[in-house]
């Protein structure tokens, strides 16, 4: 649990005058599941965007296995092992569920520049995609067009795409948001399953404290873009920052 796989050093981004992520220095060890919490607008998604490369930093750097990846575009970071599921569902809406997952498998196996074979003849890709659908409880929706699916199912597919990608660093951004009470546990079970493999590192943005308390090895708190707390779940949840900035809001919500 000791070796660092991912590290951010003084990671900062400004939008105009607004500092959305403020000098966040943090390391993530292999096999660790870190929950990232913080109120709305705290900068959690922006922090993810900086790590996976959707936006570039104003200051500071991101390191994967010691290598500075701050300047790399998104697909190259994916190649190196950074994978991301989005808070706002972000899929291929006019393709089927199977096609969505198969595109990920195809990317993972570097078959994208295969010009003269028929996609349909790559049964190994289809089978691997079907296995992911089986695991994520989406097999029944295999041939449905994504935009015709209910929101909760789309959220599940969002998670399935990340699982199909099978990166070194998994980043889940509120994976259970918008899911029904019987769908959310499926996803949480999946994350728990992923955690069992100690070669994987997981970053999880999640609001539900009860969930994090049992699932996470560690919690970090972002507040106004800055790192406000970092430690074992019980300790962080009990801390003043969380009680004030976070639990207050969660209690109001409840």
């Amino acid at each position, binding site marked *: 649990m000791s070796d660092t796989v991912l590290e951010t050093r003084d990671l900062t981004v400004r939008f105009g005058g607004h500092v959305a992520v403020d000098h966040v220095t943090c390391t993530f060890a292999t096999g660790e599941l870190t929950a990232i919490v913080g109120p709305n607008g705290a900068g959690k998604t922006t922090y993810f965007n900086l790590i*996976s490369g*959707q936006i570039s930093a104003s200051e500071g750097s991101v390191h994967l296995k010691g290598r500075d990846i701050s300047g790399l*575009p*998104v*697909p*190259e970071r*994916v*190649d190196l092992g950074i994978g*991301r599921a*989005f808070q706002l569902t*972000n*899929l*291929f*809406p*006019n*393709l089927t569920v199977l*096609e969505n997952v*198969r*595109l*990920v498998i*195809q*990317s*993972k196996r570097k*078959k*994208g*520049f*295969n*010009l*003269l*074979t*028929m*996609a*349909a*003849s*790559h049964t190994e*890709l289809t089978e691997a995609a079907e296995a992911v659908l089986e695991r994520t409880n989406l097999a029944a929706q295999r041939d449905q067009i994504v935009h015709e699916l209910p929101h909760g199912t789309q959220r599940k597919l969002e998670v399935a*795409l990340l699982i199909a*990608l099978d990166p070194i660093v998994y980043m889940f951004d509120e994976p259970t948001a918008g899911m029904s009470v019987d769908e959310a546990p499926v996803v949480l079970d999946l994350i728990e399953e992923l955690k069992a493999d100690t070669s994987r590192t997981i970053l999880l943005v999640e609001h539900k404290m009860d969930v994090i308390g049992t699932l996470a090895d560690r919690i970090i708190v972002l507040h106004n873009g800055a790192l406000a707390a970092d430690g074992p779940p019980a300790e962080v949840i009990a801390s003043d920052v969380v009680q004030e900035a976070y639990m207050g809001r969660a209690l109001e919500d409840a």
Partner: protein
Amino acid sequence: MLRRLISGDTPRSTVLSIVLLVILIALAFAPFLFPGTRSVDTAARVCIFIALVASYDLMLGYGGIVSFAHTMFFGMGAYGVALASIHMGRGFDALLVGSVAGALAAAALAFVIGLFSLRVRAIFFAMITLAVASAVAVLVSQLSSITGGEDGLNYKIPRALTSAHKFMDDKLFGVRINGKLANYYLVFFGSLILFLILLRIVNSPFGRVLQAIRENDFRAEAIGYRAVYYRTSATCISATVAALAGSLYAIWLRYVGPDTTLSFEIMIDILLMVVIGGMGTLYGAVIGATIFVVAQNYLQNLMGIAEAALGDLPVIPLFLNPDRWLLWLGVLFVLSVYFFPTGVVGRLRRRV
């Protein structure tokens, strides 16, 4: 076997299958079914435009890339054949060298344009292609010592591809078996092969990625596809096929000029053909090109007949004057877009 040939991309509609089959048979046997210089010429144009429009659809319909430089690539293949035939002397070697050179030049130019501008926004690419295509058109008309300027170039092609060369003394089914017939089949099979290659590409893993990028390039990148590389590759492939179609056209016409290959009017024709047939399905190119080229060639005749027949009525013949054919083509276009917003193929495939 047939399934593999069409890369598993079945027409998915009985009516569409029948229409496609009719077009295929009509083109395959055109010299025998519709003897006469004019009709065979129309058939050859249909073949070439099917390949050309299909290559454009690879970019527009599959890649979501808007380009105005397609006639430029088409022209590069045509001028390649013309220049090689002039400078190397008539011969199949000149045709081959000209075609390959034109295709390579088109691919290289597409690569440069793509890599520089596809990084940015789609609209930027469209503007760059417009600028480059206009510049090339001006250049071609200015450099008349090389390109023949506005007059274009006439050149000789191998005798075996002209009507002067007879393979048989007798006629077969009333048709002379001469070099012109061989030339037609060169055009027919050349276009067919180009079309089948494109059909394979759009149904390959690469074609799937293109579709994914068109749907959601943000997510395509987030699962590891470098959108610029895929878009640029699609542009290069499209340009190469367009250039080869241009070479076939040059071999068929024995003439190139700005009007036959480079003009902006042809670019608009291509756009219309894609839209009429249906974007994002190569069968749309077949339907669009066939309807359009046939209408372009025969609408005037049809109108002449109609004008003569209705000559006694007031006003109406005015609209049927053959000189108004473009107006009617426009009406046809508006109607087809109104009634078939997803193109003829989209309409035929619609689930009921």
